[in-house]
């Protein structure tokens, strides 16, 4: 029995919902009043994740925080074909590299989006440079992949690395970060949206055709 501690407007929760849906897994969404209630900073939630952040996933006795760790677990436990997290050492390591990149270098983008969304008086300028740089790195990587006939971040097919990167980048325009100079990113966003089981969240536009 899988439970996801979830907030509808959280991009990190969304990436775990994406994989749950793509794997066709049933789960219960335990909705957390992140805004305005700040329930994620209260003792009951801190007992689940001392960092006070969603998502948290439980599966039986197992309890996990960190979206990338959750993606890793779901892929290993529920994808016997090992498409989402391949076994080959080089590919698995590339996936790990991009998962770490998503967790660390897309964090400013995620933080800026949330501050903007809940209307705090935050100066977003310091977030801008690292956010643009992170998107540029993904753009360069994807453009290089395309030259080699590759269309995904870490393998010849979609992996959890693609899902880990997707939400923050897809919603960058919500925070005033334009993706017009990132054509390879645009094409890749479209490919992710064509994956079977793809779902949207507010801020992620659905495929219109």
């Amino acid at each position, binding site marked *: 029995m899988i439970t996801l501690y979830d*907030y*509808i*407007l959280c991009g990190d929760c969304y990436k775990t919902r994406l994989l749950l849906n793509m794997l066709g897994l049933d789960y219960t969404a335990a*909705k*957390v*009043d992140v*805004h*305005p*209630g700040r*329930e994620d900073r209260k003792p009951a939630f801190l007992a689940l994740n001392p960092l006070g952040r969603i998502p948290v996933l439980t599966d039986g006795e197992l309890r996990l925080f960190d979206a990338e760790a959750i993606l890793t677990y779901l892929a290993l436990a529920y994808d016997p074909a090992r498409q989402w997290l391949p076994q080959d050492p080089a590919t698995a390591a590339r996936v790990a590299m991009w998962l770490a990149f998503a967790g660390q270098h897309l964090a400013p983008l995620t933080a800026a989006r949330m501050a*903007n*969304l*809940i*209307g*705090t*008086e935050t100066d977003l300028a310091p977030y801008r440079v690292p956010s643009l740089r992170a998107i540029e790195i993904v753009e360069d990587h994807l453009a290089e992949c395309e030259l080699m006939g590759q269309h995904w971040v870490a393998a010849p097919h979609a992996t959890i690395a693609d899902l880990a990167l997707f939400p923050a980048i897809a919603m960058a*325009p*919500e925070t*005033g970060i334009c993706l017009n100079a990132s054509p390879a990113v645009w094409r890749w966003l479209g490919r992710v949206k064509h994956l079977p089981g793809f779902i949207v*969240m*507010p*801020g992620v*536009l*659905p495929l219109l055709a």
Partner: protein
Amino acid sequence: MAITTDQTALDDWYVVAAMSDLVDGAVHRTRLLGQAIMVACDADGLITCHESGPTHDHPVCHVITRYGFIWVCLGHPARAIVAIPEIGEPGRRFLQRGRIGVATSGPRIIENFFDLSHFSFVHLGTLGDQDSTEVPRYTVNFREDAAELWATECRFFQPKASAAAGSGGEVFYNYRVTSPFVSIIYKDSLVATGKLDLIGLFVQPREETDCIVHSFCLVHDETNSDTELLHFYHEIFAQDRSVLIHQTPKGLPLMPRREIPTQSDAMSIAYRRWLKKSPLTFGVDRAAW
């Protein structure tokens, strides 16, 4: 940004915080009409508001707590705070929905709120469905000596009109606009027959094209938790937000040559004409072309 010189905007009331934003004596910093302000609650529960700037810091005279929100007028109040007698009636649940920042003008946000035709495209599966996009005719009228603008007899097919709605159905609506920055929906409850649910939007224009939206719901719902209600509404409002922030120009165009309305836009047209007649300039675009 400096405080606006638009006296019409200055003389109106705006929500600048929810009471719950003022926890543990912390000062709540925000902006209103281009002016930085600080709102605080002292040990006796007294709410104070200060304009704060590099060269000045003085108290704001007109500060009122109502409906669990803090209302401020930076000028001389030209009208009363919107009356919502339903809040005192039994049977409904009152819930503040948390502030959401939207980088556009207040009038754009209000216009989107009462627009019916976007439901089927922006709120798929909740407020609309791509198979029933028609907006049946509705009536637009002025009440309270033209101080309020209403759209009545609105109806629309909605797959899931509220968090409590179990199945789709045709839902009847009235929209009430009491100021350029305040609007309230009265809509059929799908669980309490013959009763109305209310949803209110109080826009806090921080700058001409940057707002915070405060809102509440007052609904018949015995089944959902507060958090479930919040998630339901946040999903819908974030869908609106993602459309709103891309609308251009950000100020609401008021001149007839700037628009190509259809019958379903009757309320938008009335709202734009109503604003055009007023002296308001804050958040509107009066360019002829």
